[in-house]
């Protein structure tokens, strides 16, 4: 297996530097090769030294850029919206596609050395966001150009300082709450243990006073989120786990004060502070892990970030570079070959072919001519066309897809999660038990004891273990999964996956490599590669590109062509050295004599068959879902072992989504933008390695290792995680029933309560860390 020199992807069809042949450095694509040469040229070869010694953070190949000039970035109107000034300097944030390791960090932060006018460049590797500061001699268009030259596609981020600042503020305050709770819980232990050990008289008074002093900030400031959530839940007439927690905290505090007041040694402040600290920290980590994924919001503007050529004067054929944001209906734009269209519209000049795979998943290019409609997000393959804009931004077909994706996300997050469902019954039971205990003791005649014991019961059965066990187990599974290259953005994925019945897999790019390749090449002629290379490099048809890739490392001489012609839908032809050559129908013809034959196919990934078998063995029915035609899809299904009745073909993005909706408990695996809707609609969406950014955002899970095998891992992991959760719930319910029984028998005292509470949390913690046998096998 050869790996790409630049991005470490497996090289299927090698690209080689012509002048570097002696060293034979293979590249997976032209993009990687260009970046390698650029780095070499500006003397940043140490990139590869650093990369060699660093763990890959997440594998993603560099992004090919259209050679845009990014002039629009320097537009004053754009700058006011996307940058902010600090004294003499201007700051802008860029989201960089293609950040994958330590070496990327090094490279991005070297920007001030490479480019004049850049004061500083800092990368947040987790968010893939670079913050670049320039002085008056610098320009952001140059910065963007440099980034794209280095192999990262830059997207200026709107200076949404408000929302970003708000997020940072929230994050800092939750850290502060944890810090305060941790410090207090730690200090309070000293005095609480002294009290348990029998400190008396003056010391007992001082220590009791001190525990109150430490507990106050924890019970008010640190625990504030619990009260807030509980209050919101009550107002919305729902039950949340925060209600019993708040209840326990408030009652515990009340009892603590009461005990100190009447002179009972033990108070609950130590347990309460530890509880708040543990709960806060487990929630914080769970949230941190989930945030690692790309968010689905702000999707649309990512696809509006390449500049467009807008006609300033159509008669004089003058065009200016503008940001697509400033496009309006009726504007005339010029679309160059290889450019992506930024708006929907009608062709008014020129003929070309468009690649709409991004939108529809059709792998074949579509011919367009004057009067035809073209859609935002499709790529112009052939020659320049002039388009009159009819729809822009969110109104375009792509915009609609993005909107659907965002909607899919918002309705999905309303699912009631496991914790809330359980806490519903839990809260009710505990309250009923407390009331009945009170009545039971009351009938025996002692109001004071009845009151005390009912309150103690509420505190002891406090859902510490319950509230702790679920986030803890999820956190552990999610973080272990991310070490295995599976980034899970939402903990409910694990719960949903454990109930899975159907798995839908997109064909192109998921089961297959998503790239046309030349197979079974047979020839007797030795110079046939020179001819193929010369003829096909003039065409931009996908088959031609595959042939160019195949013949480039094999050709020896450059040859001259005359009378070149590309016959749309057939092939290419031309004269070389007095002979007439045609490349069509999977063959090369010299004066109508076949001299070489080949097959063009999107080859199937090596691991697809095994993964499909593993999924079937774990009791799931595996389906194939594709925009391609019946024949191709069925052949692929047959090769990987998917049953014929489970093949779905010829589907548009919207149809894919409604197809999946017919099957409950389904997981979708996909990669392209055409999968984005279905990824956000399915119960669980998984985007594979190399997926488009939009799919990464639409999916709840994305994979950073190639192939389908991680999907099998997710299925196993989710089942095992749910097992651990069930075990933890049993354990904490066991503790609770024990304490309830003790309470009814009158055995419970504040000291017993203080021992049971941390002990149950500890048991749950150990149970979570130990996991199950299959889990431990996965971690290895």
């Amino acid at each position: 297996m050869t790996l790409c020199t630049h991005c470490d992807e497996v090289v299927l069809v090698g690209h080689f530097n012509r002048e570097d042949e002696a060293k034979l450095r293979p590249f997976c694509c032209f993009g990687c090769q260009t970046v390698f040469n650029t780095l070499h040229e500006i003397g940043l070869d140490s990139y590869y030294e650093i990369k060699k010694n660093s763990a890959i953070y997440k594998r993603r190949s560099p992004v090919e850029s259209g050679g845009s000039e990014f002039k629009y970035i320097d537009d004053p109107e754009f700058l006011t919206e996307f940058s902010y000034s600090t004294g003499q300097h201007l700051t802008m944030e860029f989201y960089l596609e293609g950040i994958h390791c330590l070496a990327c960090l090094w490279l991005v932060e070297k920007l001030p050395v490479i480019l004049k006018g850049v004061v500083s460049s800092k990368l947040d590797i987790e968010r893939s966001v670079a913050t670049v500061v320039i002085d008056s001699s610098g320009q952001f268009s140059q910065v963007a150009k440099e980034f794209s030259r280095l192999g990262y596609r830059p997207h200026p981020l709107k200076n949404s300082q408000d929302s970003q600042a708000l997020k940072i503020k929230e994050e800092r305050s939750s850290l502060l709450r944890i810090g305060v709770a941790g410090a207090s819980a730690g200090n309070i232990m000293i005095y609480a243990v002294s009290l348990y050990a029998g400190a008396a008289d003056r010391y007992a008074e001082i220590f009791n006073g001190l525990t109150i002093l430490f507990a106050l900030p924890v019970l008010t400031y640190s625990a504030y989120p619990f009260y807030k959530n509980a209050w919101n839940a009550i107002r919305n007439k729902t039950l949340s786990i925060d209600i019993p927690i708040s209840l326990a905290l408030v009652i515990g505090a009340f009892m603590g004060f009461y005990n100190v007041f009447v002179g009972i040694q033990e108070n609950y402040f130590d347990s309460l502070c530890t509880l708040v600290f543990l709960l806060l920290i487990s929630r914080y980590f769970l949230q941190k892990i989930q945030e690692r994924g790309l968010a689905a919001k702000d999707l649309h503007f990512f696809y509006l970030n390449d500049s467009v050529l807008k006609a300033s004067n159509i008669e004089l054929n003058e065009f200016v570079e503008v940001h697509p944001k400033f496009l309006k209906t009726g504007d005339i734009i010029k679309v160059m070959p290889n450019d992506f269209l930024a708006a929907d519209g009608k062709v008014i000049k020129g003929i070309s072919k468009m690649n709409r795979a991004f939108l529809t998943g059709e792998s074949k290019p579509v011919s367009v001519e004057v009067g035809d409609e073209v859609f935002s997000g499709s790529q112009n393959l052939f020659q320049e066309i002039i388009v009159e804009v009819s729809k822009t931004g969110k109104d375009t077909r792509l915009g609609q897809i993005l909107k659907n994706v965002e909607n899919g996300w918002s309705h999905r997050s309303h699912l009631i999660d496991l914790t809330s469902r359980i806490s519903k019954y839990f809260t009710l039971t505990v309250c009923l038990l407390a009331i009945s205990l009170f009545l039971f003791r009351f009938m025996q005649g002692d109001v004071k004891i009845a009151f005390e014991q009912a309150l103690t019961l509420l505190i002891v059965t406090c859902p510490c273990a319950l509230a702790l066990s679920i986030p803890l187990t999820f956190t552990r599974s999610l973080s272990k999964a991310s070490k295995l290259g599976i980034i899970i953005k939402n903990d409910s994925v694990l719960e949903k996956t454990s109930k899975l019945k159907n798995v839908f897999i997109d064909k192109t790019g998921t089961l297959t490599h998503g790239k046309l390749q030349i197979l079974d090449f047979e020839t007797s002629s030795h110079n046939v590669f020179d001819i193929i290379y010369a003829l096909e490099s003039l065409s931009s048809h996908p088959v031609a590109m595959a042939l160019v890739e195949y013949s480039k490392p094999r050709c020896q001489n450059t040859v001259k062509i005359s009378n070149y012609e590309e016959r749309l839908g057939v092939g290419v032809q031309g004269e070389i050295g007095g002979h007439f050559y045609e490349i069509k129908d999977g063959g090369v013809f010299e004066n109508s004599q076949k001299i070489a034959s080949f097959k063009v196919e999107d080859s199937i990934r090596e691991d697809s068959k095994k993964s499909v078998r593993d999924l079937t063995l774990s009791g799931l029915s595996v389906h194939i879902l594709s925009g391609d035609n019946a024949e191709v899809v069925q052949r692929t299904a047959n090769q990987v072992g998917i049953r014929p009745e489970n093949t779905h073909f010829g589907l548009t993005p919207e149809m894919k989504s409604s197809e999946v909706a017919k099957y409950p408990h389904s997981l979708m695996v996909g990669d392209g933008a055409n999968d984005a809707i279905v990824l956000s609609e399915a119960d669980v969406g998984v985007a594979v390695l190399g997926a488009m950014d939009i799919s990464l955002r639409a999916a709840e899970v994305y994979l950073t290792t190639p192939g389908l095998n991680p999907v099998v891992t997710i299925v196993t992991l989710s089942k095992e995680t749910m097992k651990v959760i069930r075990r933890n719930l049993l354990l904490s319910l066991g503790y609770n029933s024990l304490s309830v029984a003790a309470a009814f028998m009158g055995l419970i005292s504040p000291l017993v309560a203080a021992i049971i509470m941390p002990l149950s949390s500890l048991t749950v913690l150990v149970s979570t860390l130990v996991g199950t046998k299959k889990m431990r096998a996965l971690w290895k």
Partner: protein
Amino acid sequence: MEIMIILLPLALFLGGVFLAAFIWSARKGQYDDLETPRFRMLLDDENKVNKTTIVKDGK
């Protein structure tokens, strides 16, 4: 046990100092990016790039 008169305030004072230090650093944004610095520290500061060969026009 008279030592408590010194020990208690001392313990409280030390705890207070560290809590204050934590609050100060959290507010300063020391914990905003917990991912990148662990990578960044692995990189040498020395500039292996020869500046003269790569000075490019900023315009």
